[in-house]
Every structure is written in structure tokens, then in C-alpha cells.
């Protein structure tokens, strides 16, 4: 039996979403400041409109939905899932007002891409975009990488048991510290520290590569935000190819690899547990799958023979592969080069890397290394059980911060999520093929969207079919939230119409 949500449930969810939107409005203050400092007054007005709309939404929910109750698991999941949708719609206001988008849907596409750290975009004439708009694009992806909910928890919530339920709804399950608010703050401290160090390194290298100090400062911050969050946005349309710089490529690669690691791992290393880097299942999984996909790519590239020396293969092949594997999407080639210069084998190696993705509780997407580790260990467990005497007890464990014994529930949960990802990849690929794109291109971009990577083989463009735009928005959102919250939201919508209306009381 499904229970229809009570009025109190809806009020609580509305109030939670109002807080999330207040957070979105607060983030817009930064691009507003940048626009004002750059004397971009129309852009500043775009952000003022965005901020005021967020404030109005938040105040309206405060007036109409204020609740003293605490969040249950379903409330938390629904607030996270619906909060992202509302945040997309309202966050798209400055984008749309900028005039760089063909429709409001296109602006929403870019917003979802930013929040989910995907990096695909439909913005037109990026090379003439303002500083304010560029700051908003990159800030979106930076905040989205830590999680909008994490941001809201850090700065707007005082801390409750219910807050943890919203935090989990955003696709993060790990409590680095006993209190979820402390965990959210720890995530932000880690990210802000890296922001300062990473941006400084990029600033020096960009200045060395001939960029003026002012421009290189902005570019270094934006490039850091894009790489660290594994979003892959860059301020110029040629992305990393714009800089033609090995130094900048190496730095961004280091940043997005570190950014793709689990925040719990970061915290453990910060606490002095350096051996965790070697022992952690996600690092081992990442190293293994990068090696395998790089070998496949190497075979493909050798067959194509486009890149004649080792340095070119590293800068074009390995860089884009690691960018794909960490679900970043920074690239040093043109979109169509994936087909024309990489060839079929290297292109599919990139697709596999994107599908696997980064670490759990990180800024990245995809299946995640943790689940790949569980999958591998579960196969090994089965084999070991088969070859062991019937009376023996065979256990299998994985190491992630601590030793975890594998059980059937854990395996089932990992398999369910992996299957959901595969389903979204396949549906996206088939949709693309139905619209006339080649299978490789259709699957490349579908996997890229659902794994929140951002590489494109040319399908994603302002002229792509509307249905594909909507599906990609869904794929980015569902992939980022790892499906559970999306199921909860879907369940609530169904129960609104078909659920039994029983009298319940909220705690």
C-alpha cells in the first residue's frame, strides 16, 4: 500500500527546497560582484534578478511551508531531488538573460550540466561571454561538485539528524566526521584549500605562458573550479586546447585526478593516514581501469596513426582518457576528433572510462570505483567459494578507510546502481540512434551525460533535438544523484495521485 503524502509532508519538503534555493541565491552574489568589478552592468542586473527571484521563492516557502518538524528519509531524498530541479530552473535566469541561449531549456541544460559537474554546454558564443557569466558557470560546477545540499548544510543549516538525510539524498553517504554539518564543512575546507593552492599554481603557469596577470588570475580560478569539480568547463570554447600548454594540461590533470578522489580519502590523508592512498579500494580500482582503458586506447591510436610521437599520444590520448575516467571532460581536441582522429577503438575505450567514472563521495560521476571494487571482489568471492570445501567459511573484504566485509546486501545495492546507470546509458544511446546519429556518437554523448563527464563527440549542440536535451538533463540529474532520490521523488509523485490518504502525524 502506498501512502499519499500529507499536507505536512509537502510543507516540510517545500521548506527544505526553500533553503536550498536560498543557497543558490547566495552563490549568485559572487558573479554579481565579479560583474560589478568588471563594469558589466547589464550582467550585474541579470544576477540581481536571479538573486531576488531566489529570495522571493525562499521567503514564500518560509511563509507558506514553515515547519518545526524534522526530515524523515523520504523527505530528505525528495528535498535533494526536487531541490536540484528548482535550483536548475531559478539558477538559469542569469544564463537566459545573458542572451547567449537559444531557449530557456538550453539555459536549464547548462545549469544542470554545471550543478552535476558534467560540463556539456549549449551556450552560444562563449568566446564573447562576460566575466560575470563565466564566473557563474564555473562557480556552479565548483559548488555542484561539493553538492548544493552540502553548501546549504554548511552555511544555512544549524545541524540535525534530518540534515543527514538530505545529505545522503545528494548521492553522498559518507560521514567523514560524526556530525553531518561538520562533514559538510570538512568537505568545504578541503575544497577551498585546494582552490587557493591550485589556482595559484595555474596563475603562475598561465602568466608564464604569456597571459596578462588579470586575465590569467580569472582563468586560473575558473580552470581550477572546472577541473577540481570534474566539471570540465573552461572560459574559452576550445577548452584546454585554447592554451596549447603542456604545463597547464599537467596541472589540470593533477587537479582533476585529486578532485575525483573520495572526500573521506582526502580527509584520511590529511589526518596523516598516507598508507590509505595505496590500500584504498577506489584508488586501486581507478589505477587498474585507467591502465586497461589506456592500453585499449593505445592499440586504437596506433592503428589510426594520427599522433606520431609519445608526447602527442600523452597529451591527446592519455589526457582525454584520464579526463574521461575522472568524469571531468576537459579536452585538448575537437569534439569530432574523437571519431576522426581517435578512431573506433580509442573512442570506445573513452566511453568505457566515462561509464566507470570516479570515486564515490567525490565530485565525479559514473559507476564509481567503490562499486567496481565491490563487483570485482564479489566475482572473486564467488570463485573462491566455488573452489573451497563446502564446510569452509569464505569471507571477502574491501578496504575503504577501514576494512569492510562484503555481504550480499552490499553487492546487491552496488549492482542495482550499476544497472540503473547502464539502463540510462543504453536508453540515451538508443534515443540518439533513433535521431540519426551514428551508434558510437550516440553512445559516447549519452554515457558522457549520464556519467557527468562532459566530453562530446559532436551530438551535444544548440541544434540537437529537444527531446534529447530533456533526456540529457534527466540523465545528468539522475546520474549525479545516483538514482535513489529520483526514485523517491517519482514515488512521491505517484503517491500523490494513487496513494491511500491515511491520518499520520509527523514527528
Amino acid at each position: 500500500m502506498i501512502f499519499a503524502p500529507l499536507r505536512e509532508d509537502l510543507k516540510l519538503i517545500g521548506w527544505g527546497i526553500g533553503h536550498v534555493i536560498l543557497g543558490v541565491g547566495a552563490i549568485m552574489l559572487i558573479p554579481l560582484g565579479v560583474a560589478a568589478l568588471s563594469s558589466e552592468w547589464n550582467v550585474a542586473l541579470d544576477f540581481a534578478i536571479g538573486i531576488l527571484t531566489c529570495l522571493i521563492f525562499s521567503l514564500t516557502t518560509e511563509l507558506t511551508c514553515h515547519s518545526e518538524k524534522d526530515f524523515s528519509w523520504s523527505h530528505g531524498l525528495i528535498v535533494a531531488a526536487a531541490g536540484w530541479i528548482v535550483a536548475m530552473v531559478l539558477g538559469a535566469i542569469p544564463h537566459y538573460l545573458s542572451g547567449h541561449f537559444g531557449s530557456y531549456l538550453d539555459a536549464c541544460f547548462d545549469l544542470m550540466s554545471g550543478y552535476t559537474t558534467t560540463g556539456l554546454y549549449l551556450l552560444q558564443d562563449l568566446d564573447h561571454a562576460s566575466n560575470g557569466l563565466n564566473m557563474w558557470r564555473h562557480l556552479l560546477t565548483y559548488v555542484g561538485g561539493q553538492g548544493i545540499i552540502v553548501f546549504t548544510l554548511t552555511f544555512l543549516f544549524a545541524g540535525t539528524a534530518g540534515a543527514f538525510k538530505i545529505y545522503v539524498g545528494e548521492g553522498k553517504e559518507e560521514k567523514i566526521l560524526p556530525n553531518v554539518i561538520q562533514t559538510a564543512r570538512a568537505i568545504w575546507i578541503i575544497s577551498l584549500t585546494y582552490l587557493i593552492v591550485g589556482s595559484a599554481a595555474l596563475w603562475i603557469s598561465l602568466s608564464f605562458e604569456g597571459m596578462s596577470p588579470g586575465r590569467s588570475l580569472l582563468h586560473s580560478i575558473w580552470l581550477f573550479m572546472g577541473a577540481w569539480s570534474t566539471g570540465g568547463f573552461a572560459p574559452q570554447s576550445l577548452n584546454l586546447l585554447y592554451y596549447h600548454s603542456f604545463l597547464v594540461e599537467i596541472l589540470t590533470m593533477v587537479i582533476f585526478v585529486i578532485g575525483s578522489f573520495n572526500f573521506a580519502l582526502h580527509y584520511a590523508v590529511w589526518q596523516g593516514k598516507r598508507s590509505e592512498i595505496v590500500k584504498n579500494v577506489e584508488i586501486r580500482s581507478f589505477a587498474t581501469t585507467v591502465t586497461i582503458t589506456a592500453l585499449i586506447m593505445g592499440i586504437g591510436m596506433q592503428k589510426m596513426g594520427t599522433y606520431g610521437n609519445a608526447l602527442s599520444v600523452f597529451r591527446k590520448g592519455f589526457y582525454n582518457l584520464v579526463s574521461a575516467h575522472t568524469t571531468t571532460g576537459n579536452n585538448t581536441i575537437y569534439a569530432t576528433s574523437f571519431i576522426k582522429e581517435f578512431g573506433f577503438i580509442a573512442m570506445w575505450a573513452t566511453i568505457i572510462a566515462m561509464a566507470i567514472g570516479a570515486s564515490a563521495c567525490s565530485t565525479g560521476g559514473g559507476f564509481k570505483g567503490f562499486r567496481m571494487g565491490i563487483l570485482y571482489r564479489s566475482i572473486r568471492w564467488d570463485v573462491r567459494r566455488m573452489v573451497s570445501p563446502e564446510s569452509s567459511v569464505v569471507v571477502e573484504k574491501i578496504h575503504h578507510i577501514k576494512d569492510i566485509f562484503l555481504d550480499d546486501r552490499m553487492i546487491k545495492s552496488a549492482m542495482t546502481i550499476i544497472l540503473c546507470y547502464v539502463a540510462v546509458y543504453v536508453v540515451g544511446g538508443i534515443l540518439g540512434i533513433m535521431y540519426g546519429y551514428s551508434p558510437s556518437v550516440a553512445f559516447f554523448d549519452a554515457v558522457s551525460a549520464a556519467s557527468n563527464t562532459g566530453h562530446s563527440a559532436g551530438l551535444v549542440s544548440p541544434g540537437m533535438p529537444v527531446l534529447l536535451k530533456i533526456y540529457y538533463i534527466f540523465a545528468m540529474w539522475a546520474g549525479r544523484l545516483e538514482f535513489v532520490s529520483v526514485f523517491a521523488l517519482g514515488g512521491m509523485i505517484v503517491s500523490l495521485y494513487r496513494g491511500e490518504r491515511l491520518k499520520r502525524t509527523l514527528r
Partner: protein
Amino acid sequence: MKDTKKSSKSILGALALVLVAVLVAGTLILAHGSTCHGSEKTRINDLIENAKEYDGRNVMVEGEVVGDKLQRGEYVLITVNDDPYSKQSIPSGSKPKGVGNIGIGVWVPNNKAKEISVPGSYERQGQYVRIEGVFNRACAEHGGDMDIHAENVEILKSAHLIRHHIQFWKLLIVLVLSSITIALLLAVRRPAKKIE
């Protein structure tokens, strides 16, 4: 009879000359065509889409210089776009055309880059240039980048500042939204409550 023979000989001679001339010209045109796509302008998108075909050939592109002029030793690195926004960008009034930017990196020797000074950005429409040079599908000198090594650079159109007039309708919306926000703040009449 002798005259007829003479005239037919001279006609044959003239024809042979014409044939030789045509052959020489044809060979020259073909030879020229193999190293240079003539004086015809090539779209950057064509270069990207047919990189293998154009690799190592002389090409000519025209477009707007955007972004930065990056000093790299004996060269200056610029980006040239030839998309629909290269003549009128969105900030200068163009509507979105349904496509993104299309550009390529161009390495210009220092002595030929002196006149390049104002790349396009939000504030300005950049210089519009004609570049003649060698196209590289995967430049061995520059880490496999797809680029052009310029041999000639010509400024076709100078850069100009874009006037950003305040859009008063936006200001009006801000005023209306501000009024609603103040009214709501007064209605709430209590500090924003935190959970717990």
C-alpha cells in the same frame, strides 16, 4: 599547295604550343593546388572535419581574433574564429545562431604579429584577420595540437569596442522584484528559522 602546307604546319605548330601551354599551366595549377588550397578561403570547420585531407597544406582562413595574444618565444599564439559571431558577437547585438564558436589556434611569427593587438571579448569585437599558413592535423612541434603555422597575416578589419547600454527593462524588473522581496520580508516578520 606549298602555302596550304605552310599554313597547316603553322596551325599544327600553334596547336602544339597551346597544348604545351595548357599542359604546363595545368601542371602548375595542380602542383600549386597540392601545397596550397589556392587563394580560396577555407572554413575552419572544414579543416577540422577534413583534417587528414588538409594536413600539411597551405590554407587561408579569415576570422576574428579572440581571447588572448599569448607570447611564446619566437611566436605569438592567437585563436581565430570564423563562426557567425566573428563579425557580430552576441554582446554586440547578434541573436544566437544555433551554433557554438568555431576556432583554431594560429602560431604567428613575432615579426608578423606586430599588428595583432586587440582580440575579441565581451567588451569588444576583435580584429578580423586573414591568415595564410600551413595547417597541421597533429602538429609534432606542438604536442599533437591541430593548428595553423601562419606565413602571412593581414588585418582586414580593425577591432571596435562594444557599447553596453544599460537595459532599463532589467532595471525595472529589479525594482519590482525588490518591492516584492521587501513585502515578503515584512510578512515573514521573523528571522529565518533554522532546522532545530
